[in-house]
C-alpha cells in the first residue's frame, strides 16, 4: 500500500472516530452566548492589561522626565488590587468561553487550507497566551514558581500577545459579534395551551451566562479578602490572612535574603552620599533626628495590601544633612538581589511623607520588616519600599 493510500485510510478512520461539532450539545451554545461572554472577558482582560501596564511602568519607568505621581497614597494599592482581581475574574470567563467554542475545534475538514489553518493558529495563540497570563499570574500569587523563566518579564511580554490575539478575532468577526449581541439570548417560547407562563425546564443559555457570572462572583469573593479586609472571612483562597510580625505581612524574610548578619550588626551605619558631601549615620544618630509619623500601606505587587503606622526620618531631611537638594536618588539595600535597589524620583524624595522608617506600629522595626532602617513612601509598590538600607546616593 502506498503512503498516499495509507494516509487516506487514516483520515477516513479519523473522520469516523474523532468527535464532530454535532457531538456536542448545541442547545446551550451559539454565538449569542459566546459574544456575551466575550464582551465580559474583553472588559476584564482589558482592565487587567491596563492595570498591569501601570504596575510594570511604575517599576520600570521609560526614559524621559515623566514619573509616577506621589499621590494619592493609595493609588498603586488600588490599581494592583484591581489587576489581581480582574485577572481572577477572567479565569471563569475564559473557561466558559472556551467551553462554548470548543466544538469548533473538531469542525470538518480538520485541515482546511491556508485560511482555515491561519484561523486555527490564531485561536491557538489566543488560548495559549491568555491562558498563560492567567495561569502564571495565579501561580505567582500562590508563590508556585514551577518554571525556568523570570516571571515579570514573561508576564509582561505575553500580555501583548494575549491582548493582540483577543483583538484579532474581534476584528475578523465583528459583524457576527454585532448581530449576536443584538439577538435575544433565548429563542422565543410559544406559550402553552392553558396560557400558564412558559418556564423552560432544564439548563438554558441564560443559565450558562448565569454560571459564568456566578463563577466570577465566587472567584472574586474567595480571593479579594487580602485587599478588602472586611471580606477576609469569606476569602478562602486569599494569599494572606493579613497577619504578620508587628501586624503587617512579610514578603521576603531576612533569612531568605541572607541579610540577617549585616542587618543585626551593631556597627551598621547608613551612608547618605550627596553630590558634594557624604555622611554616615548610626541608628542612634537617626533616632536623635526629628521623627515624623505617617500612615502608609504596603501594597504588594501580588495584590495584597495592609495599612500601617510608620515613624522615622524624612528622606529630604537626610539629604539635607548631606547638603543635597531632593533629586532622583538610589536606595540601596544590604540585600543582594534585583529588589536590593530602587530609584526614588525627585518629587517623591521631596515629599515629607517619604521616610527612612525606624519604627512600625509603635515598635522598633522588625528584622523581617527591614531593621535597621527601610524606605516607606506614598503610592509605591511594596517591592520598591527597600528594606535593610545600607546606602542612599544620588542617581
Amino acid at each position, binding site marked *: 500500500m502506498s503512503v498516499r493510500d495509507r494516509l487516506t485510510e487514516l483520515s477516513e478512520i479519523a473522520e469516523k472516530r474523532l*468527535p464532530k461539532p454535532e457531538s*456536542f450539545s448545541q442547545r446551550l451554545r451559539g454565538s449569542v452566548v459566546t459574544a456575551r461572554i466575550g464582551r465580559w472577558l474583553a472588559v476584564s482582560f482589558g482592565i487587567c492589561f491596563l492595570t498591569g501596564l501601570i504596575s510594570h511602568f511604575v517599576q520600570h519607568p521609560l526614559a524621559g522626565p515623566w514619573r509616577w505621581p506621589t499621590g494619592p497614597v493609595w493609588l498603586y494599592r488600588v490599581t494592583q488590587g484591581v489587576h489581581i482581581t480582574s485577572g481572577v475574574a477572567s*479565569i471563569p470567563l475564559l*473557561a466558559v468561553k472556551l*467551553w462554548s467554542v*470548543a466544538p469548533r475545534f473538531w469542525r470538518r475538514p480538520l485541515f482546511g487550507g491556508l485560511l482555515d489553518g491561519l484561523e486555527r493558529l490564531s485561536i491557538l495563540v489566543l*488560548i*495559549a*497566551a491568555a491562558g*498563560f497570563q492567567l*495561569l502564571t499570574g*495565579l501561580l505567582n*500569587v*500562590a*508563590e*508556585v*514558581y*514551577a518554571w*525556568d*523563566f*523570570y516571571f515579570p*518579564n*514573561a508576564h*509582561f*511580554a505575553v500580555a*501583548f*500577545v494575549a*491582548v*493582540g490575539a483577543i*483583538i*484579532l478575532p*474581534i*476584528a475578523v468577526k*465583528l459583524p457576527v459579534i454585532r448581530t449576536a449581541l443584538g439577538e435575544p439570548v*433565548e429563542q422565543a417560547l*410559544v406559550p*402553552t395551551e*392553558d396560557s400558564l407562563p412558559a418556564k423552560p*425546564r*432544564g*439548563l438554558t443559555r441564560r*443559565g450558562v451566562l*448565569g*454560571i459564568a457570572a*456566578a*463563577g466570577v462572583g*465566587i*472567584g472574586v469573593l*474567595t*480571593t479579594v479578602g487580602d485587599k478588602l479586609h472586611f471580606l477576609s472571612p469569606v476569602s*478562602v*483562597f486569599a*494569599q*494572606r490572612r493579613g497577619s*504578620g*510580625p508587628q501586624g503587617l*505581612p*512579610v514578603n521576603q524574610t531576612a*533569612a*531568605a535574603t541572607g541579610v540577617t548578619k549585616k542587618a543585626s550588626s551593631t556597627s551598621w551605619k547608613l551612608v547618605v552620599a550627596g553630590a558634594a558631601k557624604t555622611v554616615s549615620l548610626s541608628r542612634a544618630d537617626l533616632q536623635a533626628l526629628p521623627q515624623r509619623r505617617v500612615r502608609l500601606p504596603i501594597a504588594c505587587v501580588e495584590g495584597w495590601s495592609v495599612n500601617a503606622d510608620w515613624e522615622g526620618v524624612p528622606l529630604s531631611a537626610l539629604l539635607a544633612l548631606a547638603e543635597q537638594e531632593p533629586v532622583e536618588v538610589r536606595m540601596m539595600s544590604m540585600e543582594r538581589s534585583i529588589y536590593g535597589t530602587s530609584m526614588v524620583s525627585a518629587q517623591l524624595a521631596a515629599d515629607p511623607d517619604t521616610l527612612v522608617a525606624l519604627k512600625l506600629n509603635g515598635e522598633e522595626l522588625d528584622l523581617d520588616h527591614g531593621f535597621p532602617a527601610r524606605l516607606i513612601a506614598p503610592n509605591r509598590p511594596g517591592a520598591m519600599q527597600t528594606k535593610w538600607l545600607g546606602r542612599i546616593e544620588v542617581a
Partner: protein
Amino acid sequence: MRITLPGILAGIGIGRLLLGALGLIGIGFGGVVFFVLAGSFRAVLSGGLWLLVPPVVSDLLIMPIAAGAGWLIARLLPAPWRAPVTVAIALSVLVLLIGWPFISGLGVHPDNASLLNRNYPLGALVALGVIWLCCLGYAVVRWMQGRRAAAAGQPGPAPPVPLGQAGVNS
C-alpha cells in the same frame, strides 16, 4: 468608509482593518519582547512549554471530561435534577480552577508564617459545600412546589415549545 482591497479583504471597513492590524502588531510586539527579555534558551523553552499547557489541557483533557460529565448527567439523573447538578458541578470546577494552587500548598515558605497562612483545603470544602447546598436546596424547593401544585390539582407548567424546534427539549 470603505476602501477597495483585493480578494478576501474586499469590502472591509477601515476601522476593522485597523483593529486587526493592532491585533497583529500586539502579537508580534509581544513575541519579540518575549525573546528579547528571556535572557536564555532555557527560559524560552520553559516559556514555550507553559504556553502550550492551556490549549493542550483544555482541548485534550478538560473538554472531553466535560462532555463525558454532561453525558453521564443526562443518562443517570432524572430531569428535574439535571440543571441544579450541572450548575453545582460547573461552579465547583470554576472555583477549583482558582483555588487549586493554594490548596496544593506548593508555594508555602517555611521561613514566612505570614504568607499563604490560611487553611485552604478546609476553605475549599466550605466553598464547595455552600455551592452544593444552594443548588440542591433550589432543586428541593422546586420539587416541593411541583408536588404542592400537583396535590392542588393544577397542571404543572408544561414544557414550552421553542419556535422552529417542536418537540425538542432535553
